[in-house]
């Protein structure tokens, strides 16, 4: 039963394999360029397993000892998981103990496959989702570990490689932009953060930004939903 589910899950994860290996490599090399041994990206990929947050965490690790700040920043960066969870309440039911790993490993990519894919006839749903999640995590851990190891053999000038994180978020932002007709949330996100950055400075703008975003989006709820119904 397990083999069957593994075989069914693997094809769905091939695109993720390419993406995670590449991004994982970049992440490992980035960590290496910050002076961390490959053990850091490897363990962080196994324990945190949230790609974008791991890039942010790399930054946090070189900007001082502020665990509370790190915790709250993580809550905000990963707030989207709350909504993945809400969408998966039903799907992750009745899968036994695997449920806990499914929740633990619910990165954007595993979520999007598990949320949208119906396993083929005769394949156990729980094991299928389990292997999708596990395979994706393996790709990411292997990629970032390799990057961390290869980073020390890299002979080209890596100055500027940290831009991979900016590039990642800009591309996610664009993907979301192209996929949506209504751009208000995205604009609020950028504008509120930019305003708070100017007001509070680079070190203290995240929490005010989040509050401002919540406030503006809450105020916009009526008009947002009203228009949606009208459109």
């Amino acid at each position, binding site marked *: 039963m397990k083999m069957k589910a593994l075989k069914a899950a693997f094809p769905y994860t091939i695109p993720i394999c390419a993406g995670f290996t590449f991004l994982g490599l970049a992440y490992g090399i980035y960590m290496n360029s910050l002076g961390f041994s490959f053990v850091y990206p490897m363990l*962080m990929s196994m324990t945190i397993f949230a790609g974008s947050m791991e890039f942010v965490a790399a930054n946090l690790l070189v900007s001082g000892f502020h665990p509370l700040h790190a915790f709250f920043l993580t809550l905000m960066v990963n707030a989207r998981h709350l909504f993945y969870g809400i969408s998966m309440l039903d799907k992750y039911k009745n899968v036994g103990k695997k449920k806990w790993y499914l929740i633990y490993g619910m990165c954007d990519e595993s979520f999007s496959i598990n949320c949208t894919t119906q396993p083929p006839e005769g394949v156990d749903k729980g094991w299928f989702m389990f292997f999708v999640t596990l395979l994706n995590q393996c790709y990411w851990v292997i990629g970032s570990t390799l990057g961390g190891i290869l980073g020390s053999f890299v002979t080209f000038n890596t100055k500027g490689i940290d831009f991979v994180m900016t*590039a990642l978020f800009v591309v996610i932002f*664009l993907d979301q932009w192209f996929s949506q007709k209504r751009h208000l949330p995205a604009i609020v996100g950028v504008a509120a*953060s930019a305003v708070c950055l100017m007001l509070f400075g680079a070190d203290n703008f995240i929490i005010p930004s989040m509050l401002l975003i919540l406030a503006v989006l809450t105020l916009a709820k009526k008009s947002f939903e009203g228009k949606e119904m009208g459109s």
Partner: protein
Amino acid sequence: MSLSTGQAVIMIGAVVLGTLTTRFLPFLIFPDNRPTPKYIQYLGKVLPFAVIGLLVVYCVKSVPVLTWPYGLPEGIAVLGIVLLHWWKRNMLLSIGGGTILYMLLVQLVFV
């Protein structure tokens, strides 16, 4: 500033704890699949887009825009990513291309 190994482990632990919280909380709050409040559903729809906007700003927060090179390498590279992504819609190509463009800019042009 560099952290001791112990401090680094605590920092990573804080990030792990934060991530676990965001992933497990819905399953703890809505164990019996009670209907999700309307407000939470609304936030679920709009917040993911706003948060990515916040993250983009977070990435460029320390770029000096008032002194040379006035954020030009970042601006040009982001523009490159937008054009590449508009054109090909290929995530890896856009990320790889944008990063390489930025590296060339800071290593060869804006040295």
